[in-house]
């Protein structure tokens, strides 16, 4: 069983952290992963930086620009991660944009992920129909879970299609825009959380965007299986550094 499915089966609310590979320093990747696991994080999304990210807010964009400037690229990330399974055992996901994967070769990329022990991919700009017609076979061959995103605007019909195509979890984007909410979730989000919960999907949902403290984490995970923190963690890294990761995680739960 894939580590992602296993983790979800444990039943505890999942705290997932996103960070950009190569940030704040080029070689921080492994250390950040180890620190996050040590402090009880359940799942990690490793961001492969890209210069034209259509789905990221300003904080993540800035970290990507900085990481690219320092020299982060696909092959280097794989190199940094090659022995990661000796020290980290929680599920790991690579999150990036489609073109770097496409240029590396989708099959070669998936094969490499499998060798390293990556459990899944999130490629927000890879459309469902292209995935199904061209790449699903490859993902399956290498035991990789593909995670799709939904937003408050996604129609019920589409959500059902995504649910059918998913085999890990569904990434529930909390708001319709990249800037997301910064001041907690309001009525609109609650309504959306309730709507999705009422759909009784076969895949669990993990909420992302706009989660930045214990309160929003709690709110988001009331009905969902877990929540993802990205920008708030990166901001914390920027101002407090890798040494203060424990403090950040403890402030959430």
């Amino acid at each position: 069983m894939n580590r992602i499915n296993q983790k979800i089966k444990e039943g505890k609310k999942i705290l997932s952290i996103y960070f950009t590979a190569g940030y704040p320093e080029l070689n921080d990747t492994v250390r950040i992963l180890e620190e996050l696991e040590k402090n009880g994080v359940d799942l990690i999304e490793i961001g492969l930086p890209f210069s034209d990210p259509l789905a990221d807010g300003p904080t993540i964009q800035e970290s990507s620009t900085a990481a690219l400037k320092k020299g982060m690229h696909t092959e280097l990330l794989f190199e940094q991660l090659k022995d990661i399974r000796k020290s980290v055992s929680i599920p790991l996901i690579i999150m990036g944009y489609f073109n770097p994967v496409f240029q590396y070769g989708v099959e070669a990329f998936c094969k490499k992920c499998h060798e390293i022990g990556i459990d899944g991919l999130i490629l927000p700009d890879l459309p469902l129909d292209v995935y199904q017609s061209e790449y699903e076979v490859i993902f399956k061959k290498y035991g990789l879970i593909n995670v799709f995103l939904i937003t408050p605007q996604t129609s019920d019909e589409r959500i059902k299609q995504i649910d059918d195509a998913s085999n890990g979890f569904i990434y529930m984007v909390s708001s319709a825009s990249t800037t997301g909410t910064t001041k907690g979730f309001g009525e609109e989000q609650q309504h959306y959380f309730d709507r999705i919960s009422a759909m009784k999907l076969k895949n669990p949902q993990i909420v992302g965007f706009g989660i930045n403290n214990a309160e929003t984490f709690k709110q988001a995970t009331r009905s969902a299986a877990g929540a993802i923190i990205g920008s708030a963690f990166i901001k914390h890294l920027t101002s407090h550094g890798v040494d203060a990761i424990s403090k950040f995680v403890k402030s959430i739960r």
Partner: protein
Amino acid sequence: MTDNYFKTYPNKEGFFNEYGGAFIPPMLEEEMRKITDAYYAISKSHSFISELRSIRKHYQGRPTPVYYCNRLSEKYGGRIYLKREDLNHTGAHKLNHCMGEALLAKHLGKKKLIAETGAGQHGVALATAAAYFGLECEIHMGEVDMAKEHPNVVRMRILGANVVPVSHGLKTLKEAVDSAFEAYMKDPITTIYCIGSVVGPHPFPMMVRDFQRVVGIEAKAQFFDMTGELPDNVVACVGGGSNAMGIFSAFLDDSECSLYGVEPGGRSMEHGEHAATMTLGKPGVIHGFKCYTLQDENGEPSPVYSVASGLDYPGVGPEHSMLKDLKKVTYEVVSDKETIDAFYELSRMEGIIPALESAHAVAYAIKLAQENPRESILVNLSGRGDKDLDYVVDTYGLPD
């Protein structure tokens, strides 16, 4: 068969064979679906078609003429004709798709039009369309281009548009697209990104092409009227490829017409010195669609350069990418230097000052004329050069 072509390409998901599609995050998916549905529903309606026709005639001044270049043809051989999109209102072909996009935006109840611009022609055209329909308009433009195309910045501001300077990266067209997308993503519900060419996610490459088809439909009939035949060659510059798709679309089934898309060769064919996407790029995904892309081995878009701000882009329309593979269109490269020579040549031989983008097409037409003195050449003169005057004279000086 032509009708069949337009029904076949793109397919339902927006693909022109392997190119195009909508490689976009889910925050945009639903909006793109709405725009696509609205486009299919509205664009075929009688009221939409009549309104657009009336706008084209009474507001834009269409049809624009086809003009035979007497002195230029005499000097270089061949028979060179220009489709005068420089005489379209606002001075370029861009208004053809902007009026269509804005009319659609109005039907969708959008409040604000957002777009990027390179040379400022798309920005001016969209600001004009916004004024016409009473919508807000926000144009993103690289700081380098703002300095180069200053007259267009002033025009956009006079027209009431908010011009947002873009200061990251090379500060040109690609960065302007990044910035416009970012602004759009903040509020995709009340705003609409009216992209400036046959690029971006589905349905934009299809929509912009359809709105530009008027150029080819007019030109083909006018040319036939003037000569009793079809042109042997059709030439257009290719940035994203909207003016080229506009004119090529009428000739795709005419195997006796050779179609040439002209790409910017910049200062040289070295990395970063040109924007010859079709000639040196390979398939990739940029700004939500698949096309020939200038990029490095990690899939990062490469730096690009051209004297013409409107051609300075590392991607190209998906339909052009397909037409290249199908060998329906030949893509050629013209350098900055040849472009500047053609800019002055057309000005002094015919009294028509072309946009630097369009001057690329003129430069290639002159080459073709010299090589094929018996043939006719129809050039899409996509825009006029007013925006480029100071830049050209200050940078290259006046010839003797």
